[in-house]
């Protein structure tokens, strides 16, 4: 299985002198695959993403296991080597407002990474930014590049971030609840957009979400997490048809079904919440 883009092996992480946040997590992602990470809030979904991206919060450490990305072990690398190994990694964050620096224009926030990773000149990076904004279906890209983040709508900001994430042709993108902060109508467009670009570029995606409806739309396989442990891991079709674990079943029951509008919303049983 050396052709996997990402292989997380028995990964554990803990707060220093504190509780363990992730228990022996293993998962594999093939090229072009979209893998969902689902679970309730606090389950450790984002923490797995942050382990992969190398941006753990200061008190959190990887205590065991490994992360193999494109055949290279990421755990234990020095910060400098880690940055170099991250050239084919990108992030689509949850909150598009706080993910853009309020005091910098869009153009510099899109081109800085291209200049750093692809060694493009100013002019080349600007041209590539225009092309990427075109790929995410933004009209009037020159105008958008001149703007500050607060001058754009939430959907526009997320498009800009998606364009930036794909700009350096990453092999793996971590998408951490990329639609949660958006209006419902915009959510669908953004989801479709990620799907479209992911297919076009053949990018693997680790897709963090608490919404099983989103998983059904976009993922090939899924890992269900509860309190930092894997409770179930399977192709999407299997999970939806035959959820094995009681927690997964409870998660389904708590998901509103657009096809059965009469259903009342059931909260998760207290022992899972």
């Amino acid at each position, binding site marked *: 299985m050396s052709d996997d883009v990402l292989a997380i092996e028995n990964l554990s992480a803990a707060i220093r002198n504190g509780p363990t946040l992730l228990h022996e997590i293993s998962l594999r992602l093939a090229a072009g695959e979209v893998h969902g990470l689902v679970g309730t809030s606090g389950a450790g979904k984002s923490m797995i993403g942050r382990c992969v991206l*190398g*941006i753990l919060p200061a008190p959190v450490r990887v205590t065991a296991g490994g992360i193999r990305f494109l055949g290279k072990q990421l755990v234990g690398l020095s910060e400098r080597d880690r940055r170099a190994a991250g*050239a084919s990694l990108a*992030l689509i964050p949850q909150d598009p407002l706080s993910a853009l620096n309020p005091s910098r224009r869009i153009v510099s926030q899109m081109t800085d990474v291209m200049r750093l990773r692809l060694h493009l000149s100013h002019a080349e990076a600007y041209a590539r930014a225009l092309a990427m904004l075109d790929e995410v279906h933004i009209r009037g890209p020159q105008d958008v590049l001149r703007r500050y983040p607060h*001058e754009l709508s939430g959907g526009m900001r997320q498009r800009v971030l998606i364009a930036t994430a794909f700009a350096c042709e990453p092999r793996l993108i971590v998408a951490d609840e990329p639609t949660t902060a958006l209006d419902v109508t915009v959510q669908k467009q953004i989801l479709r957009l990620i799907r479209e670009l992911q297919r076009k570029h053949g990018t693997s995606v680790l897709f963090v979400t608490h919404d099983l409806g989103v998983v059904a739309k976009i993922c090939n396989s899924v890992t269900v997490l509860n309190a930092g442990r894997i409770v179930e891991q399977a192709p999407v079709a299997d999970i939806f048809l035959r959820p094995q674990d009681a927690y997964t079943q409870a998660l389904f029951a708590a998901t509103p079904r657009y096809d059965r509008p009469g259903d009342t919303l059931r909260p998760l049983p207290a022992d899972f919440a």
Partner: protein
Amino acid sequence: MLARRILLRLLQSIPTLAGVAVLTFVLVRVVPGDPVAMMIPPGADDAAVARLYAMYGLDKTISQQFLIWAGQALGGNFGISITTRQAVTGLIFSRLPATLELVTVAAFVAVALGVAMAVIGTRFAGRAGEVVVDGITGFFLAVPDFLWGLAFIVVFGVLLPLLPISGRADPTQASGLSTEFTLIESFVRFRWGITTDVLAHMAMPAVALALPLAAMIARVLKSSLAEQMGQDYALLSRVKGFSRWHVILAEALRNAAIPTVSLTGVQVTFLVGGTVLIEKIFSYPGIGSLAIDAVINRDLPLIQGLILTFAVIFILINLALDLSYAALDPRLRHG
């Protein structure tokens, strides 16, 4: 737009200055102490004493005195200093440049030191480096500026005599400069021997003034940097491949500066207030030491002029701070 805002603020400050003028005028005259009593030669007769009072207008009522003073002040004449017999306006203008240069250098030192400590503490958050920075800022905050001044005199003036402990420049060096802005003028006229001499004289008083403010800036800036470093844009910048140093300096610092300027900006006025003691300690010829002498001698016209000068400086500092918010935050610029 900007010019209009500045003009509006300056107009708004007129009533403030008028209030300060009235208040100090009354206060310095109702507190006990008599400037003329100090000048009376022994054995002077009553008529001579009365003539002295009349000479300074002190035989009139306070409101009469104020009207006379205000009328002249509007024309730029703030009276004659009782002790030096010089015009107050000229006296203040000859000493003001020394204080402005001292405060400016102190402010630069405070900002540079404060930002450096905050950035280093943020870079090493959660590690020994942060503990060291927090310890240093705590110590700097706990010791007031004049104590730093005295400690510096003992250490760098007496034990290791590296720096001059008094005055503003070496008096044996003929300066030949045409303004009292000795530091700036000597620099732009390539008289760098004088520049270094003035800086050497300034070093101890400026650093003494700067340390408590530097610590204040470091505290506030470090906590807003910590908040900014937790924002998604800072994480995203690290995912893009930028180092922590880059993220702190190129991404977070500017945003963290906005709350820092609003929380510590007013403290810059404390630097100006601090000059009163610090200039006295270092015999530095600015308006701070002039103010102490004026108060000791009950030199009413001089006190009055100096307090108004301080008030004008405070108003200008606040105006500059106000304008700096807009320069830092694009959301305010367009709003």
